[in-house]
């Protein structure tokens, strides 16, 4: 009993100490949205790009009247889920949010994003490629976000292994298939790539290049166009490669795949402009052995590119300072100094075409062997095909994960085609069920 008393007393003292330190902290951190006269406008910004707060610090130093606080998020999906919950609850949303392009229709249909067309951000149209601008306006008059970065897809490959085998870089998908076979035949543990049933964004980019646009909007009615010729062509192509075994069927971003990049089992990677960050993190020991080339083409005379990832800066409908938030979003994504800082601190590929050109002069350290790295990327960015996202991208993407996981496991080309039509059915049914008019 004596011991118990002492333990209790000690615990209470500790608790009191913790309470004292803990409860004094929130008072120091700025409250969201509250701005009186004379005090600076306080904005909160939910974002997940690494080191973004360092770029925001530049803004805060230059603009004492508008203070932005970054709240780091766990990536795009959790941030959007949280935002939608806060919008439904009526409070708790930030002023600004980093929103991936494919999330914008979902957020707009939940009435989560403020229209910025009448603010400072309205005049930024000419800074961005037309396809990117389309995805933040949804083809209408309203403006829902300022584009930040894009992810034009390119082909990363191990130049040393290609050279040893006497292979040239594939420029068409037929050549890609042939190269995949040569590499796998020479060393059965090596693959030129993998079909990732975990990365719907990757498959979207492949389909986008082939000319697919999975959703369409006509007045108030949506259409779902997944089960069409372009996507079927892409699914059949990858299904054939997986069935013959020359391409791996394991998802990307797994520990096994990370190791594969590092040990040379994964000889190539179809990925976006942000790829060097992943490669330098996962495959440190292979620095200087990789090169970048444009995506292999379906029709070499009409080069096209898909887009994987990329995001924008949006202002939420719960913000009390839309004007100030739009001013900040415009600066962050179009001011040369901000873009330069975004490139060096966060490693993104800027959506602002002129900004990208002036900020990206030297290749990333991982690709120091290829001085024209960003020329390749810029050319790819200029040929990105149009693509429309719908309000239930999350449903289509999780249908992709479920259906293509089965197909990748069975390794049958026919199952890949089936997965595409299942995606179409699931996505259309969900759109109807949630009350949208579907053509």
């Amino acid at each position, binding site marked *: 009993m004596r011991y118990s008393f002492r333990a209790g007393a000690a615990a209470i003292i500790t608790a009191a100490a913790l309470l004292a330190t803990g409860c004094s902290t929130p008072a120091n951190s700025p409250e969201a949205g509250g701005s009186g006269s004379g005090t600076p406008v306080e904005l909160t910004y939910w974002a997940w790009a690494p080191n973004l707060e360092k770029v925001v610090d530049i803004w805060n130093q230059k603009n004492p009247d508008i203070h932005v606080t970054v709240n*780091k998020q766990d990536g795009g999906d959790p941030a959007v889920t949280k935002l939608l*919950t806060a919008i439904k609850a009526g409070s708790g949303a930030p002023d600004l949010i980093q929103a991936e392009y494919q999330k914008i229709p979902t957020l707009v249909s939940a009435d989560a994003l403020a229209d910025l067309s009448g603010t400072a951000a309205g005049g930024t149209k000419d800074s961005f490629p037309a396809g990117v601008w389309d995805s933040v306006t949804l083809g209408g008059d309203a403006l829902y976000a300022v584009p930040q970065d894009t992810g034009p897809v390119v082909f990363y490959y191990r130049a040393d292994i290609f050279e040893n085998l006497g292979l040239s870089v594939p420029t068409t998908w037929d050549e890609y298939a042939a190269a995949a076979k040569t590499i796998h035949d020479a060393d059965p543990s090596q693959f030129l790539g993998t079909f990732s049933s975990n990365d719907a964004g990757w498959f979207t980019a492949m389909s986008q290049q082939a000319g697919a646009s999975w959703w369409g909007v006509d007045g108030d009615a949506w259409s779902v166009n997944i089960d069409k010729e372009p996507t079927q062509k892409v699914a059949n192509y990858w299904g054939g490669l997986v069935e013959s075994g020359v391409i791996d069927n394991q998802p990307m971003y797994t*520990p096994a795949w990370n190791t594969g990049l590092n040990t040379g089992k994964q000889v190539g990677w179809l990925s976006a402009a942000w790829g060097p960050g992943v490669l330098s993190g996962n495959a440190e020991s292979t620095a200087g052995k990789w090169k970048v080339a444009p995506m292999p083409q379906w029709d070499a005379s009409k080069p096209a590119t898909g887009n994987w990832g990329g995001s924008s800066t949006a202002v939420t409908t719960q913000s009390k300072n839309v004007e100030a938030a739009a001013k900040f979003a415009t600066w962050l994504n179009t001011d040369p100094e901000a873009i330069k800082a975004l490139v060096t601190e966060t490693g993104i590929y800027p959506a602002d075409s002129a900004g990208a050109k002036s900020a990206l002069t030297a290749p990333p350290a991982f690709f120091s062997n290829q001085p024209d790295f960003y020329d390749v990327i810029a050319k790819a960015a200029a040929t990105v095909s149009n693509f429309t996202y719908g309000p239930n991208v999350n449903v289509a993407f999780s249908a992709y994960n479920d259906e293509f996981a089965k197909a990748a496991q069975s390794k049958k080309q026919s199952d890949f085609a089936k997965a595409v039509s299942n995606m179409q059915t699931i996505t259309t049914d969900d759109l109807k069920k949630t009350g949208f008019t579907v053509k």
Partner: protein
Amino acid sequence: MSTATMSTKEKPSVVSTGILLLGALYCLFPIIWVVAAASKDSSQLFSTFTLAPSTHLWDNIVDLTQYRDGLFWRWMMNTALYAGVGAILSTWVSALSGYVLAKFDFPGKSGVFKVLLMGVLVPGVILAIPQYLMLAQVGLTNTYWSVLLPQIISPYGIYLARIYAAAAVPNDVIEAARTEGAKELYIFNRIAVPMMLPGLVTIFLFQFVAVWNNFMLPYIMLGNDQLFPITVGLNGLLNQGATAPAMYTLVLAGALLSIIPLILLFLLLQRYWRVDLAAGAVKA
């Protein structure tokens, strides 16, 4: 008592010792794995033998400490706050409610107790969203309170406290105190709580571990990473988005550091726990 005297004479059974050793191995294996993995750098992590330790533990801890100006340690402090303060408050509320349910008669008592038992059966995870919506109405989401308040009421803790109060606090003592003119709250604080303390240590530990490991509630409630507990913070390091690689080495070092306080707590409070078991055996 009889089992204790018997076992001193018997030789230890090979079979049961073997089963216990297997059990211990089963429980310790993940910890050994974390220790080994936390000592590797990123190039060794997925390539060298799983359980072979390396020499980079200190480097990983330094990297983790430097991550965004020591944010990891802030998460540790937050977790200590949520778990420490949350468990103390929850234990006190549980003790008070359990004592009242055990020692007082009032209309609707059995109804309250039945609702409580039903509460034990409802997993805390499914309450996180309703709690978010309620706290959003009073503007408390994304604050320390949003994680602390929902964890103060623990139906299971109240249920345990009721059983302890019924067993550990004799009615005669309460009657005697009342006869002496003591107020009810005074009786509870000065007489009942000391008698229940061994049981309350159990409730405290139980709640502390539950809050320490809680993920869903802070994950939903908090948007500001300065308020994150360790669980949500480390999860964030693994999900940097597709454009940045997951920080496996930092997460492993963080996981290793985050279990140390729990191990210390158990080792330090172990003897009170033993007192509790012995006391329970005598009284029952």
